[in-house]
């Protein structure tokens, strides 16, 4: 879904970059070693003016390290960085900025107590010794109009939403006059709509002759917005390709280093009896618009039902009602023949329901507890906790799901996103459940992990579990669902069979324009 609208604008900027011109910034044979890890080895990268250049790779591939070297934050252990064809030594970000290279870090570099305007002028030596607010303001208005970045200069940065903070970051760099902007996984914190707006901004920058380096591990957005793609794996460059001469499959294979199968998977056998029956469920908080209005659906054994919808249209509420976390105002929920409406999560679980919430570290797992303790959370506990079995269970999950962790005692907080999701899935799927409710299970994961999770859900389906899959990501829904429902403003507005669902039709329905 994300990135589709920006793709139309693509390429217009690429024409501006003639291949004869020297790359505006280039890495040659760059290597960087951290204690115990080789983050970059022999990396070559050439970025030209007027292009959006994607740096693609799985988590830990060395993308952030390379970008940090290019902006002067890190010094390479070997190799050279060239700007406009000349070798340079960037000792710190100040040198980088002086040469027109700026970076928007994944963890924003903003002073939360400062206003937007203060953040923007920080460190800018062109400012007069005594600051005046007027100059910044007019420049901000101009940049805002040109690139679609509007922000209130007087707002305190700590009060802004992440999407706005990101706009401050970008404005800050543009105000400093960078020619090369490196963005480290900028869409990780954005909604699909915000991501689309960002892509429009990036294309506008490229059209202005700037070079944009977009770091990502999401194939869809890379194909939608980039002109060229350099793929990193284990700190090395696997290849550099033009975006219109490649496809998802090729990129995924380069990124992961083996064939990955992201093709859609459907039920092999006809669905069995209904294991989840939701009837006329409404959720009307007093004095506010209804979150859910008369939702009815059934999930059968051995079937995946996908519920698509833009965030805020009731998916979260639906999942929580089904999982017993919320009592609906009207309607009933029946799990495997047992009425569980409003009887709490324990009753739903007792009836055979497992729930993988979208908010993995908030609702799904207890971040500061160990893997073993997190696995215990949903087990019936006696008076004493049986440590030995818990540890053995944790070992089992770690092994079976290939979780990268130091052991059962590792705190969940310290794991990477993909591994957190594996622990959560490990807990929810190893129970003998009949109904599985999963929300955006592959959000934020890299390709290898996405394949893994999809395989797992498919395997459960074949084992006769009824799966309710809720997501904003149509790719995710279409890859797995046998039936697709679209939720808009708390109502089901469209139902299609998984095989022949049309992307445009679904997208329109999600936006409330369909049916």
């Amino acid at each position: 879904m994300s990135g589709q609208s920006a793709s139309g604008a693509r390429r217009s900027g690429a024409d501006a970059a003639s291949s004869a011109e020297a790359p505006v910034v280039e890495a040659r044979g760059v290597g960087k070693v951290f204690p115990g890890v080789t983050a970059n080895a022999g990396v070559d990268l050439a970025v030209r003016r007027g292009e959006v250049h994607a740096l693609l790779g799985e988590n830990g591939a060395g993308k952030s390290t390379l970008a940090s070297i290019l902006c002067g934050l890190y010094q390479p252990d070997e190799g050279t960085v060239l700007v406009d064809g000349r070798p340079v030594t960037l000792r710190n970000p100040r040198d980088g900025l002086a040469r027109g290279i700026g970076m928007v870090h994944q963890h924003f570099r903003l002073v939360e107590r400062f206003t937007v305007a203060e953040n923007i002028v920080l460190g800018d030596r062109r400012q007069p010794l005594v600051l005046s607010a007027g100059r910044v303001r007019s420049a901000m208005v101009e940049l805002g109009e040109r690139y679609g970045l509007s922000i209130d200069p007087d707002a305190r940065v700590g009060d802004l939403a992440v999407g706005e903070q990101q706009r401050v970051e970008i404005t800050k760099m543009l105000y400093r006059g960078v020619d090369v902007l490196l963005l480290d996984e900028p869409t990780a914190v954005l909604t699909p709509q915000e991501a689309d707006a960002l892509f429009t901004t990036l294309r506008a920058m490229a059209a202005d002759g700037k070079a944009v380096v977009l770091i990502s591990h999401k194939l869809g957005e890379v194909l939608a917005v980039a002109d060229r793609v350099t793929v990193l794996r284990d700190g090395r460059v696997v290849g550099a390709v033009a975006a219109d001469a490649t496809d998802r499959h090729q990129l995924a294979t380069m990124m992961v280093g083996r064939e990955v199968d992201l093709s859609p998977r459907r039920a092999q056998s006809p669905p069995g009896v209904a294991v989840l029956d939701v009837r006329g469920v409404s959720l009307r908080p007093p004095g506010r618009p209804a979150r859910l209005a008369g939702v009815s659906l059934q999930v059968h054994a051995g079937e995946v039902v996908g519920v698509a919808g833009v965030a805020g249209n009731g998916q979260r509420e639906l999942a929580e009602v089904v999982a017993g976390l919320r009592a609906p105002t009207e309607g009933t929920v029946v799990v495997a023949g047992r009425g569980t409406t409003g009887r709490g999560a324990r009753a739903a679980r007792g009836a055979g329901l497992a729930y993988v919430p979208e908010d993995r570290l908030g609702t799904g797992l207890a971040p500061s507890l160990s893997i073993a303790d997190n696995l215990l959370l949903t087990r019936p506990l006696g008076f004493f906790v049986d440590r030995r079995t818990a540890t053995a269970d944790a070992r089992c999950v770690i092994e079976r799901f290939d979780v990268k962790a130091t052991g059962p005692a590792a705190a969940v907080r310290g794991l990477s996103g993909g591994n957190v999701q594996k622990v959560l899935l490990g807990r929810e799927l190893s129970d003998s459940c009949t109904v599985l409710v999963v929300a955006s299970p592959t959000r934020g994961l890299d390709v290898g992990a996405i394949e893994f999770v999809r395989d797992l859900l498919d395997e459960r389906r074949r084992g006769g579990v009824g799966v309710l899959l809720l997501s904003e990501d149509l790719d995710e829904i279409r890859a797995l669902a046998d039936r697709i429902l679209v939720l808009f403003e708390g109502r089901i507005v469209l139902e299609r069979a998984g095989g022949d669902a049309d992307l445009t039709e679904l997208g329109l329905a999600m936006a409330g324009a369909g049916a």
Partner: protein
Amino acid sequence: MNDSAIVLTLAAAVAAGTPLALAALGELLTERAGVLNLGVEGMMLLGAVTAFLVGDATADPWLGLVTGMLTGGALAAVHAFLSVTMRANQIVAGLALVIFGTGLSTFLGQPVEGRPLTARITTAAVPVLADIPVAGRILFQQDLVVYATWALVLAATFYLTRTRAGLSLRAVGESPATADAMGVRVAATRYAHTIAGGLLAGAGGAYLILARVPSWSQAATTNGVGWIALALVVFSSWRPLRLLAGAYLFGAALRANFALQAAGVRGIPAEVLALLPYLLTIAVMIGLSFSDLRRRAGAPAALGLPYVRDER
């Protein structure tokens, strides 16, 4: 009227608050850069003893003041080296500074213990203003250092809120990683403001001996003013104008004998009131050790944290 007990007490409070204000202003600048220097007492003592020695030898109090500032600054430079370059624990480094400063000033002051100082900073009434009833007596029949303190406080306010360098300073104290990414020199900023803090602490110590205490005596010179200065920075929420007001308030408490007589209060022993700044200081120090309280009091977010670029 001009010589009423209250007016005299207030005038004394301003004078007593001045060394406190100087040292605390220095610590404020240091802390705004994210460096915690608990060694104020040490820097003040060393500033005081060197100011005494030079003032005594040259019979020029101003030369003494400058010397005191420089030695305070030098000691602060050691702290900057330990905490910025070596990334040592700043609390430990600061306490080491106190021990070192105290020890060295005992050693230097031994030969002159109890000796009176004749070269002194004397009152310089401001023409015209000094004749204003009440306020003139309280504020404008003081010495040059008192007036200079006001100028410094105003300048610091302006510097922090309005200038480019002040913005960079605050950013370094709030989020050194951000400042670094924006091209601000984090280490240089921290060094500069830690040393500036030392210069002011040294000035505070020097002023004590040059204007307030009649003769050199290790124990009676600073009287723990350096510790109170640390608490004062917190009370001021890291703002210079509030800090000055607080300094005069504490100055009044330090002159408790006067104050009580002036207020005509009987029954409360003056010692209890004189103890108040110290008790408050202890309370503030304990409170400060809780990071949550620190944040709510308005402390720079990166206070006491070394900055390392290569770390995640």
